[in-house]
């Protein structure tokens, strides 16, 4: 209990008939960087806003640092919120924006000045302290917003898609910076994003959400390599699905796919739900888990179905292929750029070879 920062206990929010958040229970550990990831309308922002106190849950309780916050107004929760559009006070300088929360806490002016300057230094904006928000770039505004949120030493830092208005390059830089800052301050952070790459980059754990429910909670490695279901597998990264049957075998399972693909999979590469008899299953194959071999020198085995390259897109570090299998299915294949510069051409006849350790059997989503 002691290392718990936030606990939501079966919180629910309905808008008219639609359920935005459905009976959601979640524990956030102290010092953890946790992301809510999901498509728009999945309930991630509503959940964050319930924790912040801007949205009142229809049911359930919210506990922060052991205190029941469910009925407490936002200004008594001591949480630091960073908004997507920064929400800096336009009539105040950067300094005054950061000082606002301390003024509300009646921190004396000397102490206040010291802490504001420290916070601005932390986000490397000391030189901009007298500028108004409109005189700052988007990235700088976001840093001020961050400084404003952390200067009050909140129980938890809440971030609502804070980087989505920045251009791609700046966003990458800010992700790393944000992560470093959070580690250095040892602060608990809850981060909302619809960008799976961003969630993978910054998070200790990711909460994948869809339609108001938690699909999976896990480390970036877990949700990527061991997705809980078809939705998670499909939402995080690229994935190919092959339907088939699962049979128990010595030392694991045998997956017999629709395409004549037969693979031996290890015990832990099968989702618990998928092991139950009668549950329709499919094999999730990441594009990088497939290797292409020339058809001529590979014996066509059950593990190496034949196909033809129908599209090759070179992006420098890697090439993405679309391979049309003889069975009719199209697979996405990702190949790193090779030292010898070899690339498959459209029309090449190939066989596909799976890396068995990297595939995963999941139940088919209904």
């Amino acid at each position, binding site marked *: 209990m002691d290392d718990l920062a936030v606990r939501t206990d079966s919180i629910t929010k309905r808008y008219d008939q639609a359920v935005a958040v459905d009976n959601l229970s979640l524990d956030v550990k102290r010092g953890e960087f946790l992301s809510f990831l999901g498509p728009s309308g999945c309930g991630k922002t509503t959940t964050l806003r319930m924790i912040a106190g801007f949205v009142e849950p229809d049911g359930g309780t919210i506990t922060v640092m052991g205190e029941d916050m469910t009925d407490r107004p936002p200004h008594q929760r001591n949480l*630091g919120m960073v908004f997507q*559009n920064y929400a800096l006070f336009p009539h105040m300088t950067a300094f005054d924006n950061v000082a606002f929360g301390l003024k509300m*806490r009646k921190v004396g002016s000397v102490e206040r000045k010291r802490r504001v300057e420290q916070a601005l230094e932390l986000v490397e904006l000391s030189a901009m302290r007298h500028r108004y928000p409109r005189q700052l770039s988007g990235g700088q505004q976001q840093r001020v917003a961050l400084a404003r949120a952390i200067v009050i030493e909140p129980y938890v830092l809440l971030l609502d898609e804070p980087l989505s208005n920045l251009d791609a390059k700046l966003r990458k830089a800010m992700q790393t910076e944000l992560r470093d800052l959070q580690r250095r301050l040892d602060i608990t952070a809850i981060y909302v994003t619809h960008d799976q790459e961003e969630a993978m980059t910054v998070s200790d754990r990711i909460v994948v959400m869809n339609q108001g429910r938690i699909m999976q909670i896990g480390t970036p490695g877990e949700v990527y390599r061991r997705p809980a279901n078809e939705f998670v597998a499909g939402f995080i990264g690229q994935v190919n699905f092959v339907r088939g049957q699962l049979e128990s075998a010595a030392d694991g399972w045998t997956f017999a796919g629709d395409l004549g693909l037969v693979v031996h999979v290890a015990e832990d590469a099968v989702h618990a739900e998928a092991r139950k008899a009668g549950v329709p299953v499919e094999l999730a194959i990441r594009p990088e888990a497939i290797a292409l071999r020339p058809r001529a020198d590979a014996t066509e085995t059950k593990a190496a179905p034949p196909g033809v390259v129908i599209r090759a897109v070179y992006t420098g570090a890697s090439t993405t292929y679309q391979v049309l299998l003889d069975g009719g299915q199209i697979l996405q294949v990702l190949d790193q750029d090779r030292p010898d510069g070899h690339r498959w051409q459209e029309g090449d006849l190939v066989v596909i070879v799976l890396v068995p350790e990297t595939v995963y059997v999941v139940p088919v989503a209904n």
Partner: protein
Amino acid sequence: MRGRGRFDTGGFLLRLYVALVALFLVSPIFIILLTSFTPSESVEFPPRGFSPMWYGRLVEHLDGSPGTKPGLTSSIVMSAQIGLVVAVVAVVVGVLVALALHKYVFPGKEVFRNLVLLPLMFPQLVIGVGLLLVFSEFRWFGFFERLVIGHVILTIPFVVLSVGASLEVSEQDLEEAAMGLGATPVQTFFLVTLPQIRQGIIAGAIFAFVTSFTQFTVTFFLYSGAVKPLPMWVYEIVVMSLDPLLAVISILLIALAVVVVFVLSKLVDVRRLFGGR
């Protein structure tokens, strides 16, 4: 492409038309301006000469010199007092109404909005007569309060519209950000919301003051007593004679309006202010 040097008939007609409309709009003001400099004892157009004598007469009226119609200065003071009170009351009520309309969803909201804005379209005559009947029937208030109430009804829509427009462009997240940082709802209103709608409040207050200061119809029905609001004082001159003093006062009121519009345009984006609801 049109041939170079060919006469552009359509463009010429459009320009001519715009020029005529503009002339039509400003010509009464121009005529009044010329009339105010007449050297004769009564209004005539075109004036027979050029003399600032009626501006001198105005100063005499303000001084209350013998031979002038008394009460101009006290009329101006009274109208200014009414205008200030009206501006304050209209702003307080108008801001609350605008906030309610902006923030909350409640049954009958659209009806409420239309009722508040109704005085913009409703005949002022009816408002004046209606208020008079109610006030006399129940013997409510002195004439000063009656005038304030009448003018506030007329000017609230200006404040609601201008403050509403300010709210429309202000960021909703700002209030949440303030509360998240520990500001109570009251602190949030005064430290964050109010500065956001400052422009709308200033614009609404100025409109309210000017409207009240020059308001005739409703004032006509509601005033009584020895001291008359400025429009009533002017009206009494009109009834007696077409005095060039009228033209002088008109010119000064127009000058006031021009200054107000100029100041407003420096303070706020007027077009944006009345662009939306």
